[in-house]
């Protein structure tokens, strides 16, 4: 199995001198194609920073990041943006959608930005997979939180990216809605071979993944294959976090 994302000795330091914070320290890891990976760790452990560096949203202080075989270091902002546009999809915790655009327009936004046309069949499939058939004309304000996250997922999928990143995509949802969204992600990984990397605080959410990476103090301290919520919760307790 090939790695879609590969980090080698990636460090990220915020600030300078006395007040410098090392958010990532020499992190090396590979994300296999077609896998569903969860990233966990105590608050402030560097999960978001890890995600940003892996996705080319932020530039590491040192080390190398390869996304789908392309080395990211040395790329300028426009080149990085174009690369993200083709190879990466995002789902954020909240504020995922442009309020002025309809659901359909939000979903096709990356295509529009790239100046390409939506592939009708694929768009239909994405919309029906996330269960938004018949709501494509609505505005974000007319949707529930869970539905908004589904729109964000559809948008992340529409460009057929190499990998979809989520930073606590279910963090703002109630348990039942969160389950639906996680099941959806799982189905996408299984059904289309999509790679998904997701930061989460929730051991139950992590149990939907194929593997869990544990971060603490900017380092990957452990990983776990075939996680269950009990095992993850126990591991997190040992890391000194309350969940």
């Amino acid at each position: 199995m090939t790695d879609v994302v590969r980090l080698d000795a990636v460090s990220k330091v915020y600030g300078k001198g006395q007040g410098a914070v090392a958010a990532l320290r020499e992190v090396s890891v590979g994300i296999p194609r077609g896998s569903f990976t969860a990233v966990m760790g105590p608050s402030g452990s560097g999960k978001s920073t890890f995600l940003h560096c892996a996705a080319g949203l932020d530039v590491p202080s040192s080390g190398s990041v390869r996304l789908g075989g392309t080395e990211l270091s040395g790329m300028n902002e426009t080149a990085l943006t174009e690369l993200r546009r083709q190879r990466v999809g995002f789902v954020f915790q909240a504020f995922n959608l442009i309020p002025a655009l309809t659901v359909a327009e939000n979903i096709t936004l990356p295509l529009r930005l790239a100046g390409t046309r939506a592939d009708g069949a694929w768009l239909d499939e994405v919309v029906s997979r996330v269960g938004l058939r018949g709501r494509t004309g609505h505005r974000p304000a007319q949707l529930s939180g869970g539905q908004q996250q589904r729109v964000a997922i559809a948008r992340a999928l529409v460009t057929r990216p190499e990998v979809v990143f989520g930073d606590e995509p279910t963090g703002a949802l109630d348990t039942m809605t969160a389950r639906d969204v996680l099941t959806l992600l799982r189905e996408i990984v299984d059904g289309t071979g999509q790679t998904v990397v997701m930061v989460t605080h929730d051991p139950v959410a992590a149990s939907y993944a194929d593997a869990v990476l544990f971060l603490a103090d900017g380092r990957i301290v452990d990983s776990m294959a075939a996680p269950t919520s009990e095992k993850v919760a126990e591991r997190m307790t040992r890391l000194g976090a309350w969940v």
Partner: protein
Amino acid sequence: MISLAMRTIRHRGAAFAGAFVALLCAAALVCACGMLLETGLRGSVAPERYAGTPVVVTGDRFARETISKSAEKTKTKAKPLAERAWVPVSLAERLRRLPGVSRVVTEVTFPLYVAGRPFEGHGWESAALTPFTLSAGRAPRADGEVAVEAGAGLRPGARVPVRTPAGDRTYLVTGVTAQDLPGRETLFLSPAEARRLAGRPGMVSAVGVFPAVDVSAALREAAAAPGGVRALAATGDERGVVEFPDAEQARVRLISLGGALGGTSLLVAILVVVGTSALSVQQRQREIALLRAVAATPGQVRKMLGGEALLVGAVAGLVGAAVGIGLGFWLRSRFVALGAMPPNLRLVVSPFPAFAALAATVAAAWAASRLSARRAVRIRPVEALGEVTLPAALLPTGRLVAGLLCAGGGVALTLVLSSLSTEAAASPVTMLTALVWTVAVALLGPLVARVAATLVGAPLRAFRASGHLAAANLRAGAPRLASIITPLSLMVAMTCTILFTQTTVEDAARREAAAGTVAGHVLGPHLPSGAAAAMRGLPGVEAVTEVLHTSVRVGLEKYGAQGVTGEGLGRTLDLGVVAGRLDGLGEDAVAVSRTAAERLGVRVGGRLRLTLGDGTPADLRVTAIYHRGLGFGDLTLSHALVARHVDDPLGTALVSAPSLTRADLARAVPGTGVAETAGAAWAGPANAEVNYVAMGLIIAFTAIAVVNTLAMSTSARSRELALLRLVGTTRRQARRMLGLETLVAIAVAVALGTGIALVTLTAFSTGMTGSTAPYVPPLGYLAVVGAAALLALAATALPARVVLGRHPAEAVGARE
């Protein structure tokens, strides 16, 4: 990206309302100014009095100078003169002999007053120029006869007492004309009496030529002949220009006023729009970050913002241009009412000003979006992921450098301004200086705001909960505070500068005039020549000085001048002579103010060549330099010389008679006003009111910008306010908090605006009056500050009421 821009505008109307209103106002102002400017450049007046003559020949009313630009290229510049230029009767003879000319009609013009009302006097021979015909009676033939206009309401046989340049006389009405010219009154006398009253033997003010023949060759010949006569022929609408010299002056004024006002409003607009669009980018930070994360390149974000700006600018420009046309007509009516523009100077209406306004608005909007896009593209995509938005760097290096450069420009302009001593040169530089300083403050705003927030933190906390919150908000929200401070300080600075440059000159001139007037009484206006002589003979009268005002040109530059009689001058006027002697000011002598002497580089004993008001050249000896130039004019000439070269030789006289009362003097010169000089109101600069009207628009514009920004800034905080309400802040406390924040912004802005105005005014005062202390009436200043404070508080309170009136839970849930 354009369609995305359009969607965003439709969705977030409120965020664009600010920029829209600012641009709309700018477009309206630019369009109105464009109309004034175009009228100044191309406007024409139709002839009335000269309507009946195909060709009118008059003296050349322009001071002309040929400037050689390079070896072979020369350019002739012409500036209008203050008085009518007369031509010798011999020119009429020459024209009469031209082949094809069947008739020439000469005209003399002089001022008359009936019960203080001004009339234009002519000889009946010039009636054919209009032509005037009689509806009743007969033409005036004898010396004591007069024909009146239809509108005068007189019948043949009536007697009218008339004040003429040669004294008071009662005339018998022998005829009434069928015509009546609007806007002025005319009296016709017998040709001989008219020539006597005009007081210029052998000269005529105009020659009408019938029928239309080309007289230019004859005029060239006349100019080339010994003692050459410079004359011009006018046909068509040019005759109106000759007939209404005021219109010509008004046109020149319209050009400079339109240019200055339009330029200033455009600069203010750019400043305001940059401010509002920066504010809207600030408020849309998260949305822009999201777009960046979803894969919009920095270029695409810039394009989207540019598209929004172009759309808003285009719509605002169109609506604004339409409003501006109305504004142009309103301005014209104000100017006509204030006498700054003759009613028959028609406003030129063409699509150019509207197009110019549209283009300027779109360009301003686009430029502003370019500037705020610099900040927008720096927004990092990761900000979309986080819960809180990261505050941007306080002051990016580029902005810091630009701010410092502007401050440097401000220093340079201030220095330049302090060396300018003419109103024409100083006025535009004054505005520019204040603006450049404001731009510098705007650029360095966040830094200023941070410092200010730290300074006021301690006193604010005295207000317990709301004060504490306000202090915290101000510290964290330095950029927001800065964005409010900019328009507020702009308003304070512009208003103070506009109002107090006027008061500074007025006050200095008034003080100089008061200090320099030694005589106890002033006679006039419209004092006939005999009256001064009669007064001199009155026992108890020590000295009488007759005074006339005119303006002359040295080269092309205009100087205010007074003509005074030399005898006993020291007992009526003290001009503050610093070199030479003033008494016995002869017809070949001139006294020059110190500032003018410096500018012209003349000294006592030197010579000064100038063009008198009617175009007559004069070469005079400088006999004195004095320092009270503001109060009395830059040049002082002999009364006799000036009287021969002005349209209206009826002036005023200063009387020094310590032993006599006002009533004693009034008995000696019946029908003439007598006033004590101490109480006599000093006549301010002629077009002060016009400036107030024009600049009032700029002030109104900045006020709109203030309201705009504050309303925008307050309504954008609905989420934050709702959150405060949910955690237990009462409405009162929230309102207090907002009020305190605005008060701090006002305090900072007033301090900054006052500082800018003071620096500008001090430089202006140094150049114009020689004193470093500008005159700022305390009440006027308090009114400016009070108005600014009230406006700002109202602009905060009203949107706050709306925002706080909503249910907090609902507002918190709403998307940003």
